[in-house]
């Protein structure tokens, strides 16, 4: 048996998914067709039931019920595990073929009992030729449509020459039977119409499909190149970090006070070396973090308590004595035990970066206020400070890679320009967002302050 898979298929699962979607769409569409058919039946009855053949009345109702019932069965089948995404099994392509065969048969019966070439329904064959071409391989559609054309033509010829009975709808057409030449001309143009439809739609569909596949492949290539790039950066930075770690370790040793004979001049230089080496270590760590986030395909998500983690990070900062003069307040209106589904390590890094910034860019005896609340299905964390603030024209750039604000540079506040970038990357990786606002509302004229707002979806 032919496997129905077009020759230019590259990703079979993608094809099956696409056809499955279209299959369920056709099932819905068919219910509409059934309703319209019933409507047509009643309109005909209303116009003049006495002009109907009894076969017509019975036939239309029969077609109506059979379409309705097989559509019901098809929708049940499509919901079950009967259809498998497997070339040899009963797959979505075969399911599509089954549907089109059922539809063409019903339509043929309907067309026959409503007058064949005089029936208003026979044009629907063109519709099926197009639909079929959208899904099935060209050869299959040509075969189906040639069978339809042959049956349709033969039925027309047989009725024309009185070999079988015909059922024209006399209320819709005064023409009882067509002139022979006219009939053949009509049939010929119908043949052409169907075959050309199949040809064009098939050609366009396969060209479109090929383009789509090429696009998907191109995107995949870009993604894997990006991941390779990040891996390369990580490897290089790690290689740089190893000797740096050794240098810092030796500097730590020299500065630990276990050696006598290091005079103050030498010590001063060693302290400077240590300072610069520590900065370099911070930079390597920041780059490693950014690359790691970018390279990660999936986060290790778990249930975390945002309030508790934020509290811990502030406590840790206090323990280190980095921010003795800063007053911290945490407010939360989250219900007790509200959890956030996030990667704990990266969430900690995010909060820690934001709070470190709020401290680093603050004034002496400054304030840091943390507000945690839920809004529109998001958990919002707002960190406001009474620090130097960010000029309006820099707000949108502050989370760009390696961007450092003029104010920070002119005040000689050090940084890698990766802190807020890391925060944005982490927030976005979680499907959230970052917003930076200044002034914060808790600063003053000289220190307008900054508010950083992170929104993360609360529920998956």
């Amino acid at each position: 048996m032919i496997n129905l898979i077009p020759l230019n298929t590259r990703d079979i699962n993608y094809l099956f998914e696409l056809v499955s979607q279209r299959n369920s769409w056709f099932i819905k569409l068919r219910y509409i067709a059934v309703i319209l058919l019933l409507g047509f039946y009643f309109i005909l009855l209303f116009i003049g039931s006495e002009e109907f053949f009894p076969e017509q009345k019975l036939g239309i109702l029969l077609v109506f019920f059979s379409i309705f019932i097989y559509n019901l069965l098809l929708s049940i089948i499509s919901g079950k595990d009967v259809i498998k995404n497997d070339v040899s099994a009963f797959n979505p392509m075969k399911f599509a073929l089954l549907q089109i065969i059922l539809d063409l048969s019903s339509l043929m019966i309907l067309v026959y009992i409503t007058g064949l070439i005089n029936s208003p329904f026979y044009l629907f064959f063109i519709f099926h030729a197009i639909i079929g071409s959208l899904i099935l391989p060209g050869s299959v559609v040509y075969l189906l449509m040639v069978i339809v054309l042959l049956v349709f033509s033969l039925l027309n010829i047989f009725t024309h020459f009185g070999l079988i009975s015909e059922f024209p709808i006399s209320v819709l057409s005064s023409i009882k039977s067509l002139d022979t030449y006219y009939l053949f001309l009509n049939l010929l143009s119908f043949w052409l119409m169907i075959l050309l439809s199949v040809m064009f739609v098939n050609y366009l569909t396969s060209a479109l499909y090929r383009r789509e596949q090429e696009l998907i492949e191109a995107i995949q290539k870009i993604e894997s190149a990006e991941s390779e790039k990040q891996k390369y950066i990580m490897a290089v930075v790690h290689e740089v970090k190893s000797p740096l770690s050794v240098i810092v370790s030796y500097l730590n040793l020299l500065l630990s006070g276990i050696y006598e004979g290091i005079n103050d001049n030498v010590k001063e230089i060693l302290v400077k070396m240590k300072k610069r080496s520590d900065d370099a270590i911070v930079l390597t760590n920041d780059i490693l973090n950014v690359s790691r986030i970018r390279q990660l395909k999936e986060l290790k998500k778990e249930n975390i308590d945002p309030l508790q983690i934020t509290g811990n990070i502030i406590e840790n900062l206090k323990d280190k004595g980095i921010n003795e003069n800063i007053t911290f307040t945490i407010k939360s209106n989250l219900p007790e035990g509200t959890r956030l589904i996030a990667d704990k390590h990266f969430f900690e890094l995010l909060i820690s970066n934001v709070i470190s910034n709020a401290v680093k860019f603050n004034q002496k005896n400054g304030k840091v206020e943390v507000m945690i609340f839920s809004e529109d299905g998001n958990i919002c964390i707002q960190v406001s400070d009474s620090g130097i603030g960010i000029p309006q024209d820099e707000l949108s750039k502050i989370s760009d890679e390696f961007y450092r604000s003029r104010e920070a540079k002119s005040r000689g506040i050090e940084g890698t320009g990766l802190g807020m970038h890391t925060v944005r990357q982490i927030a976005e990786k979680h499907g959230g967002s970052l917003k930076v606002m200044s002034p914060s509302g808790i600063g003053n004229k000289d220190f307008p302050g900054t508010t950083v707002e992170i929104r993360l979806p609360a529920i998956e």
Partner: protein
Amino acid sequence: MMKKKILIIDDDSDIIEALKLFLEAKGYEVKGETKPSKAIELFNSFKPDLAILDVMMDEPDEGFFIAQKIKKINPSCPLIIYSSISKALGYDFAKSEVIVAEDFVDKPADPNVLLDLLNKYLGGSNYD
């Protein structure tokens, strides 16, 4: 009185040396090993009170295999993972259930941070 014994396993001999000199000055007996294959042998003969080890040696998670082996030999020996791959890279390992280490310190650490950890796990005294 016996000095408390520290084993350092790291593929970088300079890291071992810097740490060894510092810890020895602080009154510990320290031995180091750069080859993962010899680390267990040394652990058995030296019988350290605490081990400090890197996670990324010749193979990415070699350090973790060593950690597991050490914990099998002596479950009560505290282990400190001391690695420059930091949490950014080492997170995959660091979050898995197989980690048996007591602590995880980013390399390079302030020597006083390490000293505090040694005090924490070895009870303050440098001597048995």
